[in-house]
C-alpha cells in the first residue's frame, strides 16, 4: 500500500490533529480501548474505506480448469493487460483481427493431445477475463482421459499463440447412468400421502424385494442403490449434434465475470438466505464419471495450476504467423515401482502408490532455458527462428 493510499483512507483514520479530524477519528474514538469498546461507527468507516479502496483485482495471468458437473468442464481465466499486449505484439500489425480462444485438449494415456473443442472468448483487443464451459460426450473408452485448456490468440490465417495453459482434469471415457436413489421410497410416501395420512403399519420398502431378488445373504452391494439404464438426468445430457467422443463448447456469449462490477450495498437490510430451499436442493445426485481404471498409476495429487505456463509456447515466422504449430511442453515425468504399501515422497509431497506399487508424478519444468532451445527452420528459406517464452 502506498503512503498516498494510506492517507486516503478516510478522515476517520487520520491521527487526531489540531486542525482536521478532531474527536471523530478512529484513534481518538478508540484511544486506550480494546475489544467491544471500539467504536462501531469508526469501525464501519474503516471497513467501508478498505472495501472501497482495495477492490479485489487480479494481478497475474491465470487459467484454471474445473470439473464442474458430470460431463461438464469449466475454464476460468484472466490475462494481464501487459501480457495480452506482449502477445499481440508478436503478431504482424500489432495483432489486428485476432481472437482470444479457449481450446480444450484431451490427452490419452500415451500423452497424445487432441484439441476437442474451442470457444471464442473475445476479439483479443481488451478482454482480460472470462469463462468457458464445455460439455463432454463420453466415447465409451474404458480408460481415463486427461483434459487441459489453453487460452491463446488465433489469427484469421491459422496462427496460434498460447498465452496460458491450465491444470489437468482426469475424467473417464465412458459415462455411467445415474442411480435410482430413493425414488421408490418417494413413490411409497407419495402413495401414503395420497391415501390415509397415517397408514397402519409401515410401508414396504424397496430394499426388501431387492434383497430377496439378489439371494445373496452377505451384505449385498448397495441393496438400495441399483443401477439401471435410466435416462441421464439434467446435467448429463450430451449435445444432440455432437458425435460420440466429441466435445463442444456451450453456445453462449462469453461472459464478463462480475468481479469489476460495482460493490453491492453493504449495510444490513437483506434478509438471510433460505437454507431450507437451499438444502432441499440437495437432492440425491447422479453418479459421477471420474473413477480411475484399476491398475492405472495414480496421478499427481491435486490439479496443476501454474500461471508461469503463460507464453510457454509460440510459433512465429516471417511476416505472417506460420501454419506449423510448434508447441513446447516441458514436463518432468517420474514413474516408479516400489514394494506395495511403501510411502513415497517427491518434491516434498507424498505420492499415491498404487496397489501394485506403481506410481507416477508429472511436474511442469520451470527452467525457461529449456524452452529457448527449440528452433523452427523452414526448408525453403533456411531461416531459423528461436521459440520465445
Amino acid at each position: 500500500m502506498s503512503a498516498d493510499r494510506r492517507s486516503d483512507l478516510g478522515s476517520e483514520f487520520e491521527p487526531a490533529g489540531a486542525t482536521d479530524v478532531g474527536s471523530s477519528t478512529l484513534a481518538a474514538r478508540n484511544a486506550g480501548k480494546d475489544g467491544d469498546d471500539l467504536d462501531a461507527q469508526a469501525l464501519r468507516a474503516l471497513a467501508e474505506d478498505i472495501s472501497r479502496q482495495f477492490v479485489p483485482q487480479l494481478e497475474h495471468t491465470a487459467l484454471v480448469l474445473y470439473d464442474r458437473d458430470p460431463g461438464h468442464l469449466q475454464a476460468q481465466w484472466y490475462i494481464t493487460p501487459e501480457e495480452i499486449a506482449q502477445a499481440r505484439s508478436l503478431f504482424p500489425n500489432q495483432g489486428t483481427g485476432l481472437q482470444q480462444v479457449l481450446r480444450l485438449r484431451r490427452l490419452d494415456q500415451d500423452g497424445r493431445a487432441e484439441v476437442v473443442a474451442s470457444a471464442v472468448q473475445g476479439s483479443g483487443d481488451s478482454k482480460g477475463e472470462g469463462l468457458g464451459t464445455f460439455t463432454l460426450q463420453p466415447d465409451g473408452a474404458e480408460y481415463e482421459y486427461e483434459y487441459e485448456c489453453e487460452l491463446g490468440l488465433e489469427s484469421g490465417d491459422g496462427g496460434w499463440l498460447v498465452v496460458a495453459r491450465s491444470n489437468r482434469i482426469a475424467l473417464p471415457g465412458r459415462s455411467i447412468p445415474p442411480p435410482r436413489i430413493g425414488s421408490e421410497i418417494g413413490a411409497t410416501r407419495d402413495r401414503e400421502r395420497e391415501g390415509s395420512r397415517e397408514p397402519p403399519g409401515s410401508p414396504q420398502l424397496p430394499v426388501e424385494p431387492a434383497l430377496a431378488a439378489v439371494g445373496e445373504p452377505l451384505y449385498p452391494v448397495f441393496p438400495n442403490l441399483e443401477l439401471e439404464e435410466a435416462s441421464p438426468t439434467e446435467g448429463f445430457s450430451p449435445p444432440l449434434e455432437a458425435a460420440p467422443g466429441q466435445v463442444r463448447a456451450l453456445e453462449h456469449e462469453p461472459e464478463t465475470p462480475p468481479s469489476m462490477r460495482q460493490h453491492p450495498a453493504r449495510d444490513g437490510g437483506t434478509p438471510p438466505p433460505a437454507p431450507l430451499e437451499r438444502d432441499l436442493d440437495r437432492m440425491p445426485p447422479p453418479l459421477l464419471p471420474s473413477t480411475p481404471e484399476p491398475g492405472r498409476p495414480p496421478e499427481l495429487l491435486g490439479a496443476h495450476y501454474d500461471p508461469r505456463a503463460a507464453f510457454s509456447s509460440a510459433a512465429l515466422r516471417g511476416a505472417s504467423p506460420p501454419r506449423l504449430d510448434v508447441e513446447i511442453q516441458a514436463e518432468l515425468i517420474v514413474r516408479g515401482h516400489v514394494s506395495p504399501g511403501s510411502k513415497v515422497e517427491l518434491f516434498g509431497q507424498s505420492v499415491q502408490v498404487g496397489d501394485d506399487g506403481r506410481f507416477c508424478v508429472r511436474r511442469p519444468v520451470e527452467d525457461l532455458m529449456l524452452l529457448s532451445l527449440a528452433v523452427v527452420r523452414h526448408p525453403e528459406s533456411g531461416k531459423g527462428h528461436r521459440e520465445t517464452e
Partner: protein
Amino acid sequence: MTTPGHLAMLLHAHLPFVRHPEHARHLEEHWLFEAITDCYLPLLSLLREAASRGSGFRLTLSLSPTLLAMLADQLLAKRYLDYLERLGRLCNGVAVHGGSEPARRSLARFYRQRLDRLQAFYLDELGGDLVAAFAELEDGGTVELMTTAATHGYLPLLRSRPVAVRAQLGVARDHFRDTFGRVPQGLWLPECGYYPGLEEEVLQAGFRYFVLDAHALQRASPCPRHGVYAPVRACDDVAVFGRDPDSAQEVWCPHVGYPAHPLYREYHSDLGYEGDSALLEGFLPSGVDAAPTGIKFHRITGGVGSKALYEPDAALAQAGRDARRFVERRCRLLTSFSPTSRPPIVVAPYDAELFGHWWFEGQAFLEALIHRLDEATDIRPVTLGEHLRFHGTAGDVRPTTSSWGEHGYNGAWLRPDAAWVYLHLHQAAGELHELVSRGDWVVEQDEAMRLMRQAARSLLLAQSSDWTFQMGRGGGSAYCESRLRDQLARFRFLTGALRSGGIRDEQLKAVEWMDNLFPNLDLRHFG
C-alpha cells in the same frame, strides 16, 4: 444372537462468520441468534435429558470452527441477550395486540413461554456457555464431536492451490484442539465435497475419518463390498463412511420428506413479512423493513392459497409418528442383512440447523427418535468413531469426486454468478504463501506476524463456501457477495501494508477486532 445393526446420526452445525461489531445491530447476526434459539439450545436440552436418564443414544456432532468462534464470543453473547429481549417484547406485542385473532394471540403466548424456557435454560443451566455444554456431553459419552474445514471452504474448488486446502484443515484442527483440549478424529468435509487425493491432505492434518455421499462410494474403485453400510479405507489410517441415501431422502425430499407434512409449521410465512412496521420497529435493525422473526402462525397446509393456522400439539404428535417410522425403516434395513461379526452401519448426516429452525418440529422428532431407539433391540446408536474403533474398515477403495450439492458435483459453487471468485482466492492463497515462505516484508517482525495472521483470517473468511453458494440465489445474495468482497479487500489492505509498512496500529487493531476468530492461528499452515 444377531449383532444389532448400527445407526450413526450425525448433525453438522455450521454458520458462516456473521459477527459485525462495526454495526450496533446487524440483521445477519440474527442467523446465529435464530440458530441458537431454535436449534442449539433445544438440542443441548434434549441431549442432556437423554444423558441424565441413561439413554444409550449417541450422536456424532460436527461443530464448525466459525460457529464455535461465534458461540464463544462475548460481544455476540451480549447481543444475543438483547435479541432475546427484543423477541420477547415482540411476542408480547402480538399477544396483547388488539387486532390479533385469538388463535394468533394464543400462538404468541406459546412462543413467549417457549422463549422464557429457553432463556432460563441458557442462563441458569448452561451459564451462557454452549461450547462447554457440548464438551460436557462429549465427556459423558453421549456425543462425539468433530470439526470441519476452518471456514467451511469448498475444498474441491480450492485444490488448485493445495496450500489453501492444507490451511483450511490445519487451522480447523488447531482450533478444535484449542477449544476442546484434544485433536479431533473426525472431519466433516464442507458440503461433502471430495476429490481424489483429498484423503492425503486429511491424513496429513491428523484426521481419521470423514463422510462422503453415497455415489462417491458407489463409483469408487473398487466398488466397496458392503456399499455404504461399512466404512472403508481411503488411505493409510483414514476411513470413509458413506451417507445412507434412504434416510437422507426421507428427510430432505421437498415433496415427501418428513418436514413437508401439512401439519408442520410453515417456515416462509412469518410475522416479519406481514408489514406491521409499528410492531416490528423495535425488533429489526434500523433500515430493515421486513425479515424473519421466528414468529409464525401457519402450518404447511398443502397447495397454494391461504394457510391454516398452526396447531402445535398436532404437529408434535406427527413428529412422534415420523420418528417411529424412521426407526422402523432403519431397523428393517439393518435386520435384512445376514448375520456376521461386522454390524452394518447406517450413517444419517444432516445439517443441524434443519432441526428446529427450518423444520420447527425437528427437535421433537429427534427427541422421539431417541426414545424409540432406546426401546429398540435390533438397532444400536453409535458414533462414527466408536464404530470405527471396534470394527475397523472393510477394504480399501478410491472414492470419486463428489459432493452433496445439486447434481452431486461442484456445479453448485461454480455458477456464473460466483465462478469469478476462485481466481481471486487462488491468487490470494498464492500471495500469502509467498509472503509467509519468503518473508519479504518491510515492517517489524511482530507487526509482520500480526499482519500476516490477519491477512490469513481474511483469506479464510473469503473462502467460505456459504458465499459462493448463495450468490445469485436471491435472498442473502447481496450480503454474501458483499462479505466476500470485503474479505478480499481486507486481504489486499493487509498484504499491501506488509510490503509498504503503511498501516497504523489502531487500524490493524480495528481489523483484528472485526475478524477476531482463530486467535492462535499458526502461519505455518500457509507457508
